[in-house]
Structure formats: structure tokens, C-alpha cells
């Protein structure tokens, strides 16, 4: 499970970075935000939380 959680963390960081790389591009910002919604669900699916 730890390896899976690490991977989820990577996706999260990557999506956040995408948003900051193209703040003017609606499509990129929205789709990256949607990835973050599913990151949130993946955190639930793996009982992962930020302390």
C-alpha cells in the first residue's frame, strides 16, 4: 500500500504543477483540477491522509 500511496502523491504533485505551468489555459487548469478530484478519491480508497 505504501508504494501505491507514493504514486498517488506523485500524481497530485504533477497535477498541481500542471496547473501552475499554464494558469491562463482554462482547459489545462480544469482537467488538472479534475485529476485532483480523483486524487482525493484515491486517497480515500487507500485510507491515506495528511497528518
Amino acid at each position: 500500500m505504501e508504494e501505491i500511496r507514493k504514486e498517488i502523491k506523485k500524481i497530485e504533485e504533477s497535477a498541481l504543477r500542471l496547473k501552475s505551468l499554464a494558469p491562463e489555459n482554462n482547459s489545462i487548469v480544469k482537467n488538472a483540477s479534475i485529476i485532483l478530484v480523483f486524487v482525493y478519491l484515491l486517497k480515500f480508497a487507500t485510507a491515506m491522509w495528511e497528518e
Partner: protein
Amino acid sequence: MNKYWNSYTETLPREELDRIEFKYFKNILSYAKNHSNLYKEKLKGIEVEDIKTVEDIKKVPFTYKEELRKWQEDVDPFPYGGILGVPIEEVSTFRQTSGTTGRPVYVPESYESWQWRIESWCHILWMAGFRPRHRIFLPFGYNVYVAFWEAHYAAEKIGCEVVPGGALDTKGRVNKIIELKANAMAGTPTYLLNIAKEAMEMGIDPKSLGIERALGAGEPLPEATRLRIEGLYGCKMFDHIGSTETCGFAGMCEEQKGLHIVEPFFLVEMLDRETLSREVDVGEQGVIVITPLGRKSFPVIRFNTNDVAVKGPDNCPCGRTSKKMMEIVGRVDDIRKIRGVLFSPKTVEQLIRSEFPEIVEYEIVVTRQDIMDEITLRIEVDPSLSEEQAASIAKRLAEGHKIKTNLTCKVKIEPAGTLPRYDLKAKRFKDLRGGH
């Protein structure tokens, strides 16, 4: 294909689930306190740091439907009021309750909260054996109510092929099921019975429709009704529990004995009816109190549903470690004292559905004559029956009622089409005593 939707969370040891839910509870409590005006006010005296043990959760006051309503009347932002937990620009879908008990509650879903809700529902569908091979027909009026929107999106997500069955009459729906060879359905139990009846009137045996699996939603599913639907369609019929305010939070597994709570998405407490402070034991009736643990747009904390259910046993043979509840016994407000005896309208439904297939519709009316409470069962029977046959059914029903409830009743046979029909939220119980 794995039998679990989430083989990790669904088989976590009990202590682990408790630990995770406790942590999530504190997270959502803190979130609600910081983001929703209702909870900023309501939780003034409570600090998250004060919640040190599971027992401390009881220090947090319940939330009642009435409060949600009050916080929506003339409270900004329109129409959600003080409960809203995200900036209003983040709300992506409007839902509302049916308003059968008063002013409707308006429910905001952000994209995230809606997807969270759908993920929870995926557990319910998967647990009930819905799989990508199913072409699922959803016979409901696509509208402002949440019932079935969850089923629609979750069925799509788990890989079923969804056929939206809106804007058709019952006959049109029967024809669509046949035309597309749909092999699964979700609907209110009452409406699934109606579809079967309509099919029979069209000269079609509901078994020939080829429905393998169905899921009940929108109203309670007594065991007798569940078995009746299974018998009519030759399918497997499953139940789930949820509401607009709480999301779908429990579902039936292949064992078809009680419902698994979707953990750790929800913290579900089952509390004794008298003091609402003690978690009930297995086999005992408890009032259901729910906290959805990851839904930020409508962050209800310890929502008191007023529904009463029997706490189910641990260790389900299916291998899921989540808590179980058996079917809902009734609403706290529906269970009444009649002539000093506790009476639940669900007992009557159970009796009619299991033993009286000839009764097509019914209504229970309680009145008071002088000081005496009187129960009248108004029934409509199959119109093809003779007067003698109808009278014999009425007699048997009155006897059955006395045995099941310890109360005598009058049975009144009404002409066909007199009683109201329901697609959603049936109201077949009328207590006209006033001040009972």
C-alpha cells in the same frame, strides 16, 4: 474480477476502520467549522482538539433536517444558506429533498463532493453484483431529486451500460426493456412492482424480460417486497439505504442479509432510542446517525436521520469487515402508540406484500372515535376478482393484521383507482388523530 470494489478498505480489520474513521471525523469536523456558517455557529463551544477519543464524538451535537431548513430560509448564499461548505462558484449540481415533511432542503454538490458520493455508490452496486456485463435500465423521471442520479453515474463508473429510462410511461418502459434486452434495473420497489404488473397486463411474463438483477432505491424495501420482486422477475433483488442529505451509505451484499455500511466513507452510529447516547448491541434497534466523512460541499455532522434499524452481526460470510444494519424498522416519527401498543406501518406493508398479491394498493388510516383509536386499512383489490373474493381477502387481512400487530382493524374495499399511486416516497400511512 475481484468480488470487492475496493479489496483494501472493504477487508480492513475493525480496529483499523475505527481508527481511520475517527481521524476522518476530526478532519471533516474541523472543515465544517471553518467553512460552513451553520457549523461556525453551532460548534462554537467545541474544539476539534477536545475530541480525543471515539467516546468524545458524542460531545458533538446532532444535526437535524429542521436546522438545515431553518438555515436556508432567507440565509445567503441563495438557495443553500448556512450549510454550504464550499464557495458557491464551486457548486456544480443542484439537488433537493422531496419536501414530503415540509419545505424541501436544497443540496449543493461540488464536482468533488458529487464524485465522492458516486465512489461510495460504486461500492453499493458492486457489492450487489452489478458488473460491466449489465445493461442497466433506470426507469425514473430524471429530475431535481437525487434518487437514481447516483445509480446512473455509479453504474456508468463501474462499467455498466446505462439506459436512461426517463420520459416514458410504464408501458413505454416495458417496451424499451424488451427492445434493448436490458438485464438489470434500479428503481423504487413500488415502481418495480408496477412495471411487472404492467407487463402482465400487456400479456408479458416479467420473467421473460430477462432482468437478472435489480436494486431498490428511494423507499424502504421490506423483505417480503424484496422476495416478491425476485419471484416476479426471476431476478436477484438488492437493497441499499441513503438519502439526499446523507448520500447512499449502506448496501446489500450477495448474502442478502442486512446492509453493509460503506466504510470508511461514513461514520454511522446506531444509538439507543431513549437516550441517544449509547451504541446499541447486535440485534437491538437503534436510531441511525450519520456523518459523511469526505463531502465538503454539504458537510453534515452527526445527522440524525430519525430512522430506526436493527444492528446487524459482525463477520459477514462475504468477507467484508464493515458494520452491518438489518432492514429499517421505521421512522422514529412513524412508529406510533395505538391503544397503548407500538405500531409500525411497515408491519402492514410486510403482511400485504407477502400474503396478499391480490391487493394492488392500500392505505392505513388511524382515527380517534371519542377516546378509542381506530385503524382502517383502505384497500384496492385486483379488479378481476368477484365481490365475494374481495370480501374474503378483506376478512383474511383483518385476521392477519390482528395476529401481526395485536391490534384489530377495519378493512374497507375501495373502487379501483381511488387510492393514490406513488413513484417515489409513498405516503400510505395517515395518522389523523391529532395530538397523538
